[in-house]
C-alpha cells in the first residue's frame, strides 16, 4: 500500500510549489490595506484609505475606464476573428495551412518587446500610435493565438458526424453552424474571450509603446507611478487588477466544467 504515503506527500510538494508561485503576488493584497504612508510589509494597521484614494483620483479612474474599453474591444475583435480563424484552420483544407497557423500563433511565441517595437514603428507611420484603435489592434494580435487555440480545441473534440448529421437532416452550412456547431463550441469561445480579456487587461509592454500621456491604461499608469512615487495606492490598484483577472480565470474554469458535464454520457 505504497499509495497511502505517496498521495499526501505529492499534495504537500504541490502545495509548496503553489505557494512559491502565488506568494509574491498575494503579498500585495495585505499591503494594499495598509494604514501607513509607505509601501511596507507587514502593514502597520488596517485601512481602506488607499482604495478611496484610487477612486477619488481622476488619473486612476480615467486609466481604469480606458483599460476596460481596450479590453472589451479586444475581446470583441479577437474572439470574432479568432473563432473564424480556428474554423478555417481546423475544418479547411488549403495550401500553406501550416504557415498560416504558425503566423497566427507567432505573437504568442515572439518576445512581446519585439512585437511592441515592430508595431510601434508601423503604427507611428499609420498614425495609430497613441490611439484606442491602435492599442486594440495590437492587443488583438496578442490575444488571437489564445482564442484560436481554445476554439480550435473545442472544434477538434466536436464529433464531425454531428455536423454531417445536421446536414443530412436538411440544415445548410449556415444553419448547421448556428444551430449545432456554435452552441457546442460556445464554451471554447467563452474561454477564449476571457483569455483575450485577461491578455489585454494585464498587458503593459505593448501598452507603454502604444499609449500617450492623455491615453493610458491602468498597467501603464502603475508603471509610471512605481518609478516616481511609491504609495500603497499602487498595491490597491494591483489588487483590483488581480481580482478581476482571477475572476475571469475562475469563469473559464466554471464554463469548462459545465461543458464537460453536458457532453459526458
Amino acid at each position, binding site marked *: 500500500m505504497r499509495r497511502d504515503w505517496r498521495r499526501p506527500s505529492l499534495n504537500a510538494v504541490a502545495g509548496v510549489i503553489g505557494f512559491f508561485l502565488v506568494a509574491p503576488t498575494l503579498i500585495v493584497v495585505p499591503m494594499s490595506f495598509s494604514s501607513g504612508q509607505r509601501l511596507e510589509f507587514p502593514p502597520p494597521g488596517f485601512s481602506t484609505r488607499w482604495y478611496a484614494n484610487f477612486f477619488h483620483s481622476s488619473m486612476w479612474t480615467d486609466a481604469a475606464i480606458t483599460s476596460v474599453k481596450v479590453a472589451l474591444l479586444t475581446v470583441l475583435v479577437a474572439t470574432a476573428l479568432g473563432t473564424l480563424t480556428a474554423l478555417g484552420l481546423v475544418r479547411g483544407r488549403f495550401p500553406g495551412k501550416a504557415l498560416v497557423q504558425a503566423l497566427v500563433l507567432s505573437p504568442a511565441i515572439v518576445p512581446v518587446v519585439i512585437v511592441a517595437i515592430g508595431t510601434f514603428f508601423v503604427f507611428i507611420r499609420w498614425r495609430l500610435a497613441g490611439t484606442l484603435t491602435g492599442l486594440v489592434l495590437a492587443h488583438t494580435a496578442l490575444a488571437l493565438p489564445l482564442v484560436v487555440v481554445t476554439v480550435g480545441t473545442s472544434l477538434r473534440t466536436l464529433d464531425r458526424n*454531428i455536423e*454531417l448529421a445536421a446536414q443530412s437532416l436538411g440544415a445548410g452550412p449556415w444553419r448547421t453552424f448556428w444551430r449545432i456547431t456554435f452552441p*457546442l463550441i460556445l464554451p471554447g469561445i467563452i474561454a477564449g474571450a476571457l483569455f483575450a480579456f485577461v491578455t489585454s487587461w494585464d498587458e503593459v509592454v505593448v501598452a507603454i509603446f502604444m499609449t500617450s500621456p492623455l491615453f493610458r491604461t491602468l498597467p501603464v499608469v502603475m508603471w509610471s507611478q512605481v518609478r516616481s512615487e511609491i504609495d500603497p495606492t499602487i498595491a490597491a490598484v494591483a489588487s483590483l487588477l488581480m481580482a478581476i483577472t482571477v475572476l475571469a480565470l475562475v469563469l473559464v474554469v466554471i464554463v469548462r466544467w459545465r461543458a464537460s458535464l453536458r457532453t459526458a454520457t
Partner: protein
Amino acid sequence: MSSGALNLGGVSKQYGELHAVDDVSLDVAPGEFVTLLGPSGSGKTTTLRIIAGFTRPDAGRVVLDGRNLTAVAPYKRDIGMVFQNYALFPHMTSGDNVAFPLRMRGVNKRAASRKVEETLALVHLGGLAKRYPRQLSGGQQQRVALARAIVFNPSLLLMDEPLGALDKKLREALQLEIMRISRQVGVTVVYVTHDQEEALVMSDRIAIYNQGRIEQLGTGEELYERPASLFVADFVGESNIFRGRLETSGRDAAVVGNGWRVRVTPGTPMEAGLANGDAAAVVVRPERLRVRGGVHDPGRTDGADNVFAGVVREVIYLGSARKYVIDLHDGTTLQSRVQVGEETVQLAPGAAAQASWPIGSSVLVRDDGPAPATVEAAEVAVGGD
C-alpha cells in the same frame, strides 16, 4: 412518400493511390433492404458517404427516383442517415433532436410535435422526449437517431454500422426492430455492416465488398450456397476450402491437389468459366459434411460422394450443433457441423473417422484471390459463435 429507387452507376473514389471505391454500380428497388458487407477498408462506408453526399465521387452517378444527386448538396438530398456513434445533438432533448429535420423543413410547431410524438412511439421511446441524449442508454440513443432519420419521411435511409457499439443481445433485438420499422414506413434501406450474421438476418440482398468493388450481389442464400468467388465463400459463413487445379476429362470434373482429388458436378466448370488446368477451389460448408467412424481408403470416392479419411482432433459442443475438427492424413483440416440429435454416431477425439459429402454440395470457384485465411482463422473472424 416517394418510392426510393436508388441507382449507383460506375461510382469511383480514389484517395491518393488507394481505390476506396472502384467502379461500383448498384440498383436498389423501392422498399428494398440492401446491406453492404465487407471487411473494414473495403469501401462500403465510402459508398454510403457518397450516397449521402458527404464525399464527392471522382466518377459515376448517384440517382434517386430518377433525380441525379451527384452534384446535389447533402442537405438538399432528403436522405435519412443513422451513424454508428449516433451523432445525436448533445445540447438538444431527444424530442428536439427528432424535431430538427422538421424545423429545417419549416413544418409548423403543432404538426411537428405531433409527428415527433408519433415517431418516438414507433421506436418505443414514447415519454422520453424531454430527456437529453446523455440521460439515455446506448440502445435508446440509437432509437432516437433512427427516429430522427425517418421522421421527415425520406425515401431512402442510410445506416452506417448502427449497432456496432451495442452488446450482442441488444444488437439482435434492435435488428428486428429496425426491420419492423423500415417495413412499416416503407423506406428503402442501404445498410453497412461488417457483421455477416446481421447482414443475413436483415437484408433482402447483400453486396459483398472487397477492395473497393462489389464482389457479389445477391440474397443471403445465393451468397452462401453459390458464392461467386473464393473471397465470398471465405467471407460468408464457415467453409472447408480445397485449392488446387481443375481437371476435366469427358463428363468428369474434379479439383486436384497434392495427393487429393475432389469431384464436382459436371457442367459447373463451364458455369464458373473455368477450363482444364485453371487454378480452382472447392468450397464445402461444414453442415454438408457427414462424419462416420472407421477407416476408409484415402482418396477413394464412394458413388456420388467425395470421401476423406482422417482422425478426429476435437469435438466442440455448440448447443444446437456439434462441430467436429478432423485432421486429414496430409495435414489439412476439415470441419463438420452436425445438428445435435441428428448424429448417427458419437465420435471421440482420437477416433478414426471419414468425412464425406455429395459432389453436388461442392461449390467450384475460380482461385484468384490472395490466400484465404485458414479454416481456424476464418472461425475467429466469424466470431459469432
